[in-house]
Structures are given as structure tokens and as C-alpha cells.
């Protein structure tokens, strides 16, 4: 009897433990096999020569040649500038959206989501139309007589910066916004009743509390920019290339895979260094929105010193802006302001300029797509459907479109199958090593895609998956999975688990409660996650470049190749069609969300 009595609880506990960890297994195993192992192999490869003999020659070459060192420096400074502009430009927009009434929030937010969901390649094409020698800006300025020769806005640092900031600012805004929306509004009221002017309350209370969001989005932008090659390649100068471009050159032109691997190692090391430094100071958990506010004040020594310095600095800025405001009030014609009359004209101007910068460019592609001019020249001339006809009559484009949609849908489905159970466990259960697992799930998002793609290519070459649909779906899922996990975890955090418990006590079995209560309430979030994964997969260029072969056309690959060699309005036609698909996806999400909001 005693034997049974001691064994029974043990097996029950075991079973419960198993049930708790089981949903994590598929996702973790998937990432281990197709993400961790290929990347590790790639690192390994860099220590061998092309005959398989161990060597450090690749690294010697890297160090010996200052050109490569220059490329690394270029990449770092490019990422730093991109980060700076994204944060400085994105903060006012995020602040504006966070502090206006909820009713006005969604219309503004949509204009951040549209570019986020639009293909990078399409957006880069839009900037070619706007910044080119015959582009919107140059042609407009010329016709106004403000300039005599076209300005060099493209194929230089300026063009790269515009394209990259445009590409990465939406994600920076959303990450800052998620932190800002969690800042208790009564804190600003409290500061003002305690004697702080508006600007002071902002600098002393709101700004410090929003810093974790700034840090998280800074990390995200910096790390993504490190591995970014689309904007530098298509909008930059060929003489000023980035690390990721160098890797592509080594792979595709020099065919020196081992050296490409060594370059990847450098890129990876830079990325990991940034992530580790960030995790040490602020914690990776702020990426998923779980912010540890004011963590630095608890640390002794250096942490506390820098905290004090930071506070002094912020306080100084606060007083500076208070006096500036008072001075401005003295200079400008004085008008007694009614209480509660809050216009914030500067913030609105800044915010709307930023939103226009993000949302408008892609729309210039629509008139170009029906222009008779065979170059991407502004203004459009005449009207023709010929570019759409070219698209629809081209077997390779149609094939690429269908394949991309099919691969995208399958990727989204696989991401959901792997990600949703994992997100449920991570959001609700206490599991050992949760932060490690979350980090693993998010890692593909911050690692340069090209490294993963190259690693995957080596793996696929051995097992014969190169150019297959399954290979593509698996590769895309690596990058879509984090978006599914993040979205579902965010939805679950707002979901009241007591609703399930109520259903159980009212007589529903677990299955019935899940079907009748949990699922209907989470539907909108699930659809968002699915569409997010789908859109990301449609847009994934690195996988399309390295995992697909010549016989398997894909939309991003096709766009990339045509954009690199010949640019004509048929690309604008394709882009317009992609915009329509994205627009429909966003519309579906919005309708579902408003439907869900009405019900709750």
C-alpha cells in the first residue's frame, strides 16, 4: 500500500510535467535542427579550407586586408546611424500615438502598420521612384526652378539611410509604443499636481519610463541593420558596401564559401555582442514587453553612478525646456491659455511628417505602374495596362507569385502549428529556462537572415532539399515563428484566464472550454499572427536567394533580380499587386479586431 501511495503522486506529477513541456518540444526541436545546427556548422566551416583542412587563413585574410576591416566599420556606423534616425524620428510618433485618445489611435496606427507589412523590396522601389535622377523630388524641384541639375539623392549614403530608416522605423515605433502604452497616465497628472510643468513632467517621469522601449527598439533596429543588404545594395553606392553584401559577393561571385563563412562569423559575433550587452544591462525580456522599469537603480557601483548621471542629465534637460518654454512665452504674443486646451502643435507636425514619410512613398508606385514611360520617371505619362499585361503573360512572374503565395500560406500554417502551443506554455506556465527558450524563439528575428539562409543552404545541399518547396517552407518558418510567438503571447497576456476557470466550474470540459470560450476570444489575435507570418514569408529574400535554385522562382527573388539589373514599370505593377494583397490582409485584421472589440 505504501509503495502505491508514494508512487502514485510521483507518476501523476511526471505526467503533468510532461503535459506542461510537451507543447514546447516541436518548436524547440524545429529550431534546434534547422536553425541552431546550420548556424553552428557555418561557424565551424570558417575554420577549414576548401579541401577540408583546418586553418585560420580566412581570419588572417580578414585581419590582413584593411578593406575588410573598413567594411566592418562601415557596417557598424551604418547600423548606428540607422538606429539613431529611427529612434529620434520614431519617438515623437510613438509618443503622439500613445498619448492621443484611444479613438484617434487606430487611424494613426494603421499608417505605421501599412509600411511594416509592405515588402522591403517594394518600399525600396518606391524610393527609387522618389529619389532617382528623374524621380519625384528632382523633377518637382526642377520644374519649380529651384535647382538646375538633379540632386544626387540616390546611390549614396543618403539614399541608403532613407531606405533603411523607412524600412526599420515602423518596428521601432511599435516597440516604443508597447512600452509607452503601459505607462500609467496618472503618473503625469501626479507630477503636475506636485508642481511640475508639462515639459518637466515629461522629462522627469514619462521619458525615463519610456527608455526601456527606446532601448529595445534600438537593439532591434541596430541588429537588423547589421545584416541588412537590400537598401545598401539597391540604393547605395557600389564602392561603399556592407558586410552582408560582401558575404553575398563571396558566395555568388568568388564562390569562396569558407571565407563567406568567416565573414558570417564576424557578423554573428557583432550581433551577439550587441545582444549580450543589451541583455546584461536591460534584459531581453523587454523585447516581449515585459519591462523591468528602473532596474538600474537597484544596482550598486557603476550602475547606480550612471543612473544618477542620467537623472542629473534628464533633470537638466527638464529645467532647460521649462526655461525655454517660459522664454518663448515672453517673446511670443502672450495669450492666456484655457486649462485643458492642449494643442501640442509641434508634436503633431513632427508626428504627421513622420507618418507621411512612412506611409506615402509606396503610393507613388501606383501611377507609375500605368505610365507609358518605360523608365521609372516622374510624372507618369499617359495611361496603359501594358505593364500589367507583361506581368500576367510572363510565365516566370505568374509562377513566382503562385509559388510565393503557396509557400507563404504553408509557412504561416507551420508557424502556427509550432508557435501557438509554445506561446501558450510560455505565456501561462512556469517552466524552467523560460527566458532561454524565449530567447531561442526570438533569436531568428535578430540574427542576420543571410547567415541563417547560408547555413541552411549547406544543410540542404547535403539532404537534397535545395530548391524544394518543403525546404523553402522550413526556411521561412524560422523567421515567421518569432512573430507568431510574440503576437500570441501578447494576446494571451491580455486574456483573463479566469474566464476558462469559470467555464470549467460551469461544467465545461477542458476541450469544450477551449473551443467555446478561449478560441473565439483569441480568434482575432490568431488571425493577426497567421497573416503576420504569411506577409513575412512572402517578403523573405535571404531564404529565396539561397535556398531556391534557378528553377524555383519566388516573388522576392524575382523582384530583387529585376531591380538589380533592369528597372521598368512592370516592377511597379507587381508592387501594386503586392500592395493590394497587403492592404486586403490589413483590412481583414482591422475588421476582425473591431469585431472582437465590439464583442468584448
Amino acid at each position, binding site marked *: 500500500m505504501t509503495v502505491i501511495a508514494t508512487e502514485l503522486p510521483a507518476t501523476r506529477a511526471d505526467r503533468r510535467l510532461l503535459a506542461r513541456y510537451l507543447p514546447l518540444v516541436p518548436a524547440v526541436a524545429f529550431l534546434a535542427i534547422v536553425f541552431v545546427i546550420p548556424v553552428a556548422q557555418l561557424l565551424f566551416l570558417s575554420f577549414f579550407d576548401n579541401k577540408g583542412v583546418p586553418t585560420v587563413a580566412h581570419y588572417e585574410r580578414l585581419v590582413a586586408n584593411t578593406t575588410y576591416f573598413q567594411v566592418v566599420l562601415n557596417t557598424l556606423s551604418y547600423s548606428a546611424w540607422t538606429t539613431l534616425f529611427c529612434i529620434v524620428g520614431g519617438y515623437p510618433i510613438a509618443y503622439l500615438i500613445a498619448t492621443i485618445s484611444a479613438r484617434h489611435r487606430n487611424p494613426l496606427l494603421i499608417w505605421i502598420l501599412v509600411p511594416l507589412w509592405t515588402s522591403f523590396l517594394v518600399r525600396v522601389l518606391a524610393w527609387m521612384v522618389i529619389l532617382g535622377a528623374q524621380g519625384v523630388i528632382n523633377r518637382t524641384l526642377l520644374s519649380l526652378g529651384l535647382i538646375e541639375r538633379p540632386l544626387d539623392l540616390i546611390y549614396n549614403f543618403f539614399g541608403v539611410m532613407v531606405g533603411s530608416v523607412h524600412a526599420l522605423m515602423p518596428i521601432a515605433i511599435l516597440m516604443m509604443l508597447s512600452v509607452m502604452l503601459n505607462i500609467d497616465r496618472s503618473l503625469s497628472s501626479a507630477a*503636475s*499636481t*506636485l*508642481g511640475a510643468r508639462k515639459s*518637466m513632467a515629461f522629462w522627469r517621469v514619462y521619458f525615463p*519610463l519610456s527608455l526601456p522601449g527606446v532601448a529595445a527598439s534600438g537593439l532591434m533596429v541596430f541588429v537588423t541593420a547589421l545584416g541588412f543588404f537590400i537598401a545598401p545594395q539597391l540604393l547605395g553606392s557600389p564602392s561603399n558596401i556592407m558586410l552582408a553584401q560582401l558575404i553575398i559577393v563571396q558566395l555568388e561571385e568568388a564562390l569562396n564559401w569558407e571565407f563567406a563563412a568567416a565573414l558570417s562569423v564576424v557578423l554573428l559575433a557583432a550581433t551577439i555582442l550587441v545582444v549580450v550587452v543589451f541583455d546584461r544591462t536591460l534584459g531581453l525580456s523587454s523585447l516581449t514587453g515585459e519591462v523591468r522599469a528602473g532596474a538600474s537603480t537597484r544596482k550598486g557601483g557603476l550602475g547606480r553612478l550612471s543612473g544618477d548621471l542620467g537623472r542629473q542629465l534628464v533633470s537638466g534637460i527638464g529645467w532647460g525646456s521649462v526655461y525655454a518654454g517660459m522664454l518663448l512665452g515672453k517673446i511670443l504674443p502672450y495669450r492666456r491659455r484655457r486649462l485643458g*486646451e492642449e494643442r501640442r502643435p509641434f508634436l503633431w507636425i513632427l508626428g504627421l511628417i513622420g507618418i507621411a514619410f512612412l506611409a506615402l512613398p509606396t503610393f507613388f508606385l501606383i501611377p507609375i505602374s500605368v505610365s507609358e514611360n518605360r523608365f521609372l520617371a516622374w510624372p507618369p505619362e499617359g495611361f496603359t495596362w501594358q505593364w500589367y499585361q507583361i506581368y500576367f503573360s510572363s510565365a516566370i512572374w505568374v509562377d513566382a507569385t503562385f509559388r510565393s503565395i503557396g509557400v507563404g500560406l504553408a509557412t504561416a500554417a507551420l508557424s502556427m502549428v509550432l508557435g501557438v502551443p509554445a506561446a501558450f506554455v510560455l505565456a501561462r506556465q512556469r517552466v524552467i529556462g523560460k527566458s532561454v527558450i524565449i530567447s531561442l524563439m526570438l533569436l531568428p528575428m535578430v540574427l542576420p537572415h543571410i547567415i541563417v539562409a547560408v547555413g541552411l543552404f549547406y544543410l540542404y545541399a547535403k539532404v537534397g532539399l535545395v530548391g524544394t518547396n518543403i525546404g523553402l517552407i522550413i526556411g521561412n518558418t524560422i523567421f515567421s515563428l518569432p512573430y507568431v510567438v510574440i503576437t500570441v503571447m501578447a494576446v494571451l497576456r491580455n486574456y483573463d484566464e479566469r474566464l476558462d476557470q469559470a467555464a470549467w466550474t460551469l461544467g465545461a470540459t477542458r476541450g469544450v472550454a477551449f473551443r467555446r470560450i478561449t478560441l473565439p476570444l483569441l480568434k482575432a489575435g490568431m488571425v493577426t499572427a497567421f497573416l503576420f507570418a504569411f506577409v513575412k514569408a512572402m517578403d523573405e529574400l535571404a531564404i529565396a536567394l539561397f535556398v531556391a535554385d534557378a528553377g524555383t522562382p519566388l516573388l522576392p527573388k524575382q523582384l530583387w533580380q529585376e531591380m538589380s539589373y533592369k528597372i521598368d514599370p512592370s516592377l511597379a505593377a507587381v508592387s501594386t499587386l503586392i500592395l493590394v494583397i497587403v492592404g486586403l490582409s490589413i483590412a481583414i485584421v482591422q475588421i476582425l479586431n473591431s469585431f472582437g472589440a465590439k464583442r468584448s
Partner: protein
Amino acid sequence: MKTKLRLDQVAKSYGSVRALRPTTLDVPEGEFLTLLGPSGSGKSTLLQILAGLTACDHGDVWIDGRLSTDTPPHDRGIGLIFQNYALFPHLTVAQNIAFPLEMRRLPRAEIDRRVARMLEVVQLPHVGDRLPRELSGGQQQRVAFARCSVYEPSIILMDEPLGALDKRLRDDMQTEIRRLHKELGATILYVTHDQEEAMAMSDRICLMNDGGIAQLGTPSEIYFRPRSVFAAEFVGHANFIAPTPASATSKCMVRPENIRLLREGEKADTVVDAILEDTIMLGAFSRHVARLITGERLVAVNWSDEKGAPHHPGETVRLGWDACNTVHLAAEVGR
């Protein structure tokens, strides 16, 4: 006594919702005034307007005899304690308390001295270096109080400050706030929906309903001389007696403690027969619920009597009360 705060025909609407009907209110210096009312009665709106966090659509706010309708909150010199305390999560307790002093550009040494003294006053001398979230609810409440009174505002507004605390802690804090009120001599406007709390703490109670003032008076005036059915029902329990034919437009109200279960031969001004439905012994008191022949229920609360004959549900009892304990209420018009 000097008028500290004056609201003159102040009104506020949110869209088509009337949060506050035109309201006039004078608060003398040093008074502890409680705004009591159900949720949505306009009491928090009134407080927000006083603090300058919400602009009123109509009327004027006077503070210390100065027209302050459009004065921004940071220039009003009013302390406000928020329902959720609104302690700055990124600042330590000491930094939180120092905040209003820093805003007033006091010298550092003076700030440190005052913060230390204030921590003593609220009996939390050792938590200065901690972050707010490391404190219990009651401690956070006291820090909020310290932060709000450290710069010695002559008016302190409190928005349901004890709402989140459990019963025992709430009782302690009530005493504490009363003590600090006397010590600091500040004028306090206190918002609550808890009638017992209002009774226990206030010099005067401003009973609010439906975006306006229902009745203004001392706790005993409100309790014993309610002027409306709402006032009678919201504060304490009210028994309504069917009006006599002579006064068809008014209602009579008797408090439960004034209705007696009469013994044999005992007399009262009004006597009715009723069937006892339930008796609950509450310790010092017993609560009897009885039904009249007309179907109305009356509640009587009497001293518990161990020696008296026990009462059983279903038995017929005689209930009686005296005319001096009957309150005549005008029938509510326009509601």
C-alpha cells in the same frame, strides 16, 4: 471662518454625458470635507476640476480667494492623492518624496532634511532607498501621503485613497489621516463611496448623486435629517412607512434603531402589527426583519437581550416608534 475653496456654478459634460451639473460649494479653511456618493455621481470629476486636471465647461474655481479656473495644476499648490497612489515607479521612495521639493527648487540640504522628517512622520524611516513596488499597499499609501504633504500644501485632495486596502489597514489609515489632518491643519477634500468612512472622518459630508450635490451637512445631519429618499437610503438603512392620507405627497422614514419590538403593554406613538421573518444576532445588536400586513418589510435593530423571550420567525410581533424619530421626506420631483 475664511473660505479656502469655492466652486461657483461649475459644470462638466463629456460629450452628451453630464458628469457634473452646475454645482456651487464653499469649503472653509481647515475643514475635512468628504464627497460621498455612488460611482458616477460626479465626485471624482469635481476633484479633478479642483486639481486642475480636468477643465470645467462652465463656472469658476476660487482657491484662497483667487480666481483659479485656468490655473494649471502645477501652479495651484494643491496636493492630490490618487486612487492608485501614482508613485513614480522608476524613483525610490525618497526620490518620490523629494520630487515636489525639487520642482520648487529648494536647496538640496533642505530637501534631504524635509524628506527624512516626512518619512518619520509617516513612520517609514527605513524605506527611503526602496522602490515603490517593493512596499506593501499600506506603505505605498503612506508614501503617497508623504509625497503629497511634504511641501505643505494648504489643500489636500484625496481620491478614494483607502479603496485598495483591507478592512483593518483601512481603519488604521483612517485614524492616521485624521491625525495628520489635525497636525498639518490642511483643508482636506476626501472622496469615497464608503458611507462609514465618510461618517468616521468628516467634519462635513457632501452627498453627491447624479452629477450634483444631494445634501451638504455634518455627518449627524445627513444621518438623522436626510432631505431626500436618496440621502436616506444611501447613508444607513431606511424604513419607509406608507404615507398617511393627509400627507400623500411625502414619505416617512424611520431608522432601524428607532423601531422597537414592543413587549406586552409597552407603548409607542405609532404601533403596527407584523409577522417576524428573521432575527439575526449581531452581538451587541439584534436585527429583526418583519413584514406588515400591507406587505412592506421593516427592519428593526435593537439591543440584544439575553433574558428576554426568544423570538421565532413566523410569530406576530408589535413594532413601535415615536413621532420624534420620524423624518418626513418630500416626494422626489423630476426624477
